[in-house]
């Protein structure tokens, strides 16, 4: 059959079903499977995006428009008045300076807490894996056990400790508390990451004469960027979003943004200003949101760590 077609130069007509399989297998896009997967994905993203949409549009509306009641409508005259008010002049309890002071308090709490806790946890994890000492396994077990105990149990003892130290109600107190409570999970994170790095690297560095800190800074740290990014994200978002420790330990002067947001939203005076509330909420959530957007790629890499090859 094919021989005759070669001879005559005429290709016999073929329907799709008759085409002999050859080369890459065709991958049609609209298969039932894909349609189901994508419609479920779209549904869920709408489910999560809708509240964000309502918050954002409401924050751009004026109060009369909000009272009109149609929360899904787009704003008729979008303006950022509510945002300005939320940032500069909304009342957080007795003072009416908006969220700005709270924002800077949160910055002052988050940056040192994150840096100190990650540094200590990295050294912890490194020492637990590479410089095993007598009882290091027990030390680690106790540390991990600490992460299973609810925070509330520690709250009152921590209050007493910080009071005895004379730092209760200060930035130092809340920074120390964040550092201590971040320790179990961060140490676990770093320990497991360092455990996934080849032991022979550490041995080679020791034969080369490097000591504890030199191996840590020159060999281990340069290989640990992915896990540092994971730890950064965990700590920045965790500490930024924290309410409990802020309200207990920081003192009224140093209330973080979350506490002040709560004070704005829950203020009992007058009619609730929904647009200001919405704007304040979005403002408070911007930092963790930005962290996720910027470092999402690194986050995935860090979670999938262990793929670091020598």
């Amino acid at each position, binding site marked *: 059959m094919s021989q005759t077609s070669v001879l005559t130069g005429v290709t016999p007509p073929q329907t799709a079903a008759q085409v002999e399989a050859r080369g890459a297998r065709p991958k049609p896009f609209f298969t039932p499977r894909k349609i189901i997967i994508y419609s479920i994905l779209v549904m869920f993203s709408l489910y999560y995006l809708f509240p964000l949409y309502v918050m954002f549009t409401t924050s751009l509306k004026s109060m009369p428009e909000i009272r009109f009641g149609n929360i899904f409508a787009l704003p008729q005259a979008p303006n950022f008045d509510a945002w300005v008010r939320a940032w500069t002049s909304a009342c957080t309890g007795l003072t009416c300076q908006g969220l700005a002071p709270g924002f800077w308090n949160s910055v002052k709490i988050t940056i040192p807490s994150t840096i100190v806790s990650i540094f200590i946890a990295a050294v912890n994890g490194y020492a637990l894996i590479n410089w095993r000492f007598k009882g290091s396994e027990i030390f680690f077990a106790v540390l991990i056990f600490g992460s299973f105990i609810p925070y509330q149990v520690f709250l009152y003892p921590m209050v007493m400790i910080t009071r005895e130290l004379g730092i209760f109600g200060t930035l130092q107190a809340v920074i120390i508390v964040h550092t201590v409570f971040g320790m179990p999970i961060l140490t676990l994170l770093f320990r497991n990451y360092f455990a996934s790095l*080849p032991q*022979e*690297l550490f*041995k*080679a*560095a*020791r*034969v*080369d*004469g*490097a000591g504890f800190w*030199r191996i840590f800074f*020159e*060999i281990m740290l*340069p*290989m640990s960027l992915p896990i540092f990014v994971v730890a950064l994200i965990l700590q920045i978002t965790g500490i930024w979003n924290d309410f409990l420790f802020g309200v207990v330990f920081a003192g009224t002067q140093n209330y973080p943004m979350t506490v002040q947001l709560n004070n704005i939203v829950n203020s009992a005076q007058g009619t609730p200003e929904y647009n200001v509330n919405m704007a304040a909420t979005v403002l408070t959530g911007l930092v963790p949101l930005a962290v996720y957007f910027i470092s999402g790629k690194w986050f995935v890499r860090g979670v999938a760590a262990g793929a*670091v*090859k*020598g």
Partner: protein
Amino acid sequence: MQNSVSIRDLSLNFGSVKVLEHLDLEIAQGEFIVLLGPSGCGKSTLLNCIAGLLDISDGQIFIGGRNVTWLEPKARGIGMVFQSYALYPQMTVERNLSFGLRVAGMKKDEIERRVQRAAEILQIGPLLQRKPANLSGGQRQRVAIGRALVRDVDVFLFDEPLSNLDAKLRSDLRVEIKRLHQRLKNTMIYVTHDQIEALTLADRIAVMKNGVIQQLADPHTIYNRPVNLYVAGFIGSPQMNMFQGTLSGSTFTTDDGIAIPVGTYAFDTPATGAIKAVLGVRPEHIVLGDEAANMPFQIDAEIEIVEPMGSDTLAWTKIGGQAVTFRCDSDVVIETGQKVRLGFDTARGSIFNAETTNRL
């Protein structure tokens, strides 16, 4: 002459597990020693003890006449090469080589001189500015050897350095390591589970099992006069043929009732009376056809399987009920089912006491 490395009564326990027990090993200056054994036999552990990467439980280690038992790895005058290369991934080859020297605070021009020398010896000059990720396996292992080389040490420790390489590269680098040893004349201690590496490289091989050195001897002795059944079975591929039977005077009778004369065998410890014994014969010491006619022991057998290996041919058969392999020239034509005349001289075999498993 003073020994380069001397291990005296070394023991190592992990909790209640005894990994090494009362181990003694004397290594001469410039000697190439291979620690050979299956995984878990303690050979890598012993190497780590010598390097100072593991704290020992008892005993002493001397390197170059100095007691280094309590010294840090860097102070022991050793360089080490690892199976996974263990190159610092974020540093260039040059900085990998110079890391130890920089840690030691050596002068820049001296570092430069040593790195250049190592690069020249190992032919990695063009790779100096590359990162390890951009090197092939063979190149990486060469850099790893270079890292030991620049430190100008007395003793080189190799921990299965070729096990991560493919077969061809492995045999290439094996020759290079031998050449390196001939050029540098350093003491080298080399851990492997590959008997070919051991036999080709070593001045002396220490065959280890369960943390104990079974036999320490030159490759020829290890291969031809193994001290016990374990060494006999571990060295050689395919395995030595082992006949179970009884030794009485100058005759060995297999359990199947075949009498094999052992009058030509040189006994280490002559046996008295009739004892249970094992007769071991290497596949290449069994001969075929006309050659067999001159052998003290001859028997007819039927070929079961033929494995042409290229350089030679392996054949599987039975003597009595015992499966036997023998090796013959690849030009000899043998076929499955063929009846052949086999013969061997026990002078080249090994006889072991079946109870103690030691050589007789």
